[in-house]
C-alpha cells in the first residue's frame, strides 16, 4: 500500500486485528493452526479457552456473535468435561471424535472453495462473444434444462399479479353503521357538558375506525355551524373543542 495514503494522525495504541470467520468451524480451524496443534489430537482445554477468548474479542469489537458460535462453545465445554472423566481402554470413543470429523470435513470444503476461487480468478475477463448476426432469436428463451421449480413458481406469481392488476377486485362498499347527524348531536352534548373536550383522545379511543371518521366529520360540522371552537396549541397536540354557547340548528336536530 502506498504509505502516503495512510492518515497521518491515527490514534496510537494496539489495534486488534481479528480475521473474519465464516463460522465456528472456521474459527476452530484457525485456532488449531495458530496453536500449532494436531487436528487429530486437539488439546481441548487450550482450544476451548482460546475459542471463548476470541468470542469475547468479537463481542468487544461489536461483531455479531451468532448463535452458531455459541452452540459450538457449549459443545466444546461438554467435550472438555467428558475428557476429564476416566475412560476405559476400548470402551468408548474419544469424546473429540465427532468434532474432529467435522473439522476435517470442513477443511476439505475450504480447500475446494479455494480451488474454485482459483479457477474463477483465471477466468476474469473471459466474456462470451456477441457478434452481429442477420438473425437474432425473436424472444429471450430459457434453456429448458435450466428451468427449475423456483422459476416455475415465480412465473405463476407473475401471471397472477398481472391478472390482478388487470382485473382489480370490485370496490367493496360497507353499509353505513354510523350517521353524521347522530354524531353531531352526541358530540354537541359532550362538548356542552365538559366546556373543554379533548377531541383527539376521544377519536383515538373509539373501537371502530368508521366511528372515528364519522365523529371527525361531526366535529368539523360543529365548528362550521359555529356551535363549537377548536383549539390546538401546536401541531400534533390535543385538539380541544369548547362550546360557543350557540344552540344546534333545528334542521340538524330534526333529522337526527
Amino acid at each position, binding site marked *: 500500500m502506498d504509505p502516503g495514503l495512510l492518515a497521518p494522525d491515527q490514534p496510537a495504541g494496539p489495534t486488534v486485528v481479528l480475521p473474519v470467520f465464516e463460522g465456528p468451524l472456521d474459527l476452530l480451524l484457525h485456532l488449531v493452526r495458530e496453536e500449532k496443534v494436531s487436528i487429530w489430537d486437539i488439546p481441548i482445554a487450550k482450544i476451548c479457552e482460546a475459542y471463548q477468548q476470541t468470542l469475547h474479542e468479537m463481542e468487544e469489537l461489536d461483531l455479531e456473535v451468532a448463535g452458531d458460535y455459541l452452540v459450538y462453545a457449549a459443545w466444546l465445554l461438554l467435550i472438555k468435561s467428558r475428557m476429564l472423566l476416566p475412560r476405559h481402554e476400548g470402551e468408548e470413543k474419544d469424546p473429540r471424535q465427532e468434532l474432529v470429523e467435522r473439522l476435517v470435513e470442513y477443511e476439505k470444503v475450504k480447500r475446494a472453495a479455494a480451488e474454485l476461487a482459483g479457477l474463477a480468478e483465471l477466468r476474469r475477463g473471459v466474456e462470451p462473444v456477441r*457478434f452481429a*448476426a442477420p438473425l437474432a432469436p425473436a424472444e429471450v428463451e430459457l434453456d429448458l434444462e435450466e428451468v427449475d421449480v423456483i422459476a416455475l413458481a415465480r412465473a405463476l406469481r407473475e401471471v397472477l399479479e398481472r391478472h390482478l392488476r388487470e382485473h382489480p377486485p370490485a370496490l367493496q362498499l360497507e353499509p353505513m353503521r354510523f350517521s353524521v347527524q347522530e354524531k353531531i348531536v352526541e358530540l354537541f352534548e359532550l362538548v356542552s357538558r365538559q366546556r373543554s373536550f379533548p377531541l383527539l383522545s376521544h377519536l383515538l379511543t373509539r373501537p371502530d375506525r368508521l366511528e372515528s371518521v364519522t365523529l371527525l366529520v361531526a366535529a368539523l360540522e360543529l365548528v362550521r355551524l359555529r356551535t363549537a371552537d377548536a383549539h390546538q396549541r401546536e401541531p400534533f397536540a390535543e385538539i380541544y373543542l369548547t362550546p360557543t354557547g350557540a344552540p344546534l340548528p333545528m334542521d340538524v336536530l330534526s333529522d337526527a
Partner: protein
Amino acid sequence: MPETMDLAAMVEAVLAVAGEPVTLEALLVVAGEGTERAQLEEAVEAVRRRHEQEGSGVQVESVAGGFRLATRPEHEGALREYLGYRSRARLSQAALETLAIVAYRQPITLPEINFLRAVNSAAVVRTLLERKLVMVAGRKQVVGTPLVYRTSKEFLVHFGLLDLSALPTPEEVEQVAGEGASEP
C-alpha cells in the same frame, strides 16, 4: 511488428463483446495514452485481414461510423438451422407462464388459461404438448366441452418431483428465492 498484433487482439476482444459498432474514438480511449490513431487503424486492418483468411466465419464490418464483428451472409442458412435447433430445447417466457398455470391449477382448460394470461395461449399449449410437458386429460363438462390439460410424467421427471404435491408453495419460494424481499 508484435505491437500491432497485440493491439489487434485487444481490438478484436472489444469488438467481440461490444454487440454494437465501436468507433475509433472509443478504441482510442480503451487503448489508453501512448497509442496513436494510425496504430489503431492499422490494428483494425490487421483484424480485418485475419478474418479474410480461409476458415473464418466472421468479418469486420464498417458501419455507422464504427466497426463491428459480424457473421458472413453465406452462413445464414447454418445460423437459421442452429437457432431452430436451439429453440427446440428452450422455453419462451410465454411457455413457462403457461406451464406454471397448468402445473398449479390443473386440470385446466384453454379458456381458463387464456383468461389468466389475458392472451390466447393455444399455440403455446401446443408447444408444451409437443414437448410432452403437458397432456390432454379428457374434457370438461361445460358448454363447448373444452379439453382439459394436465402436466405429464415427463414434467415431474424434469423438475425432479415425486408428485404434484411436491411443487413449492408461494411461501416456500419466498423463503428460498427471497421473492419480495426489499433488501438488495
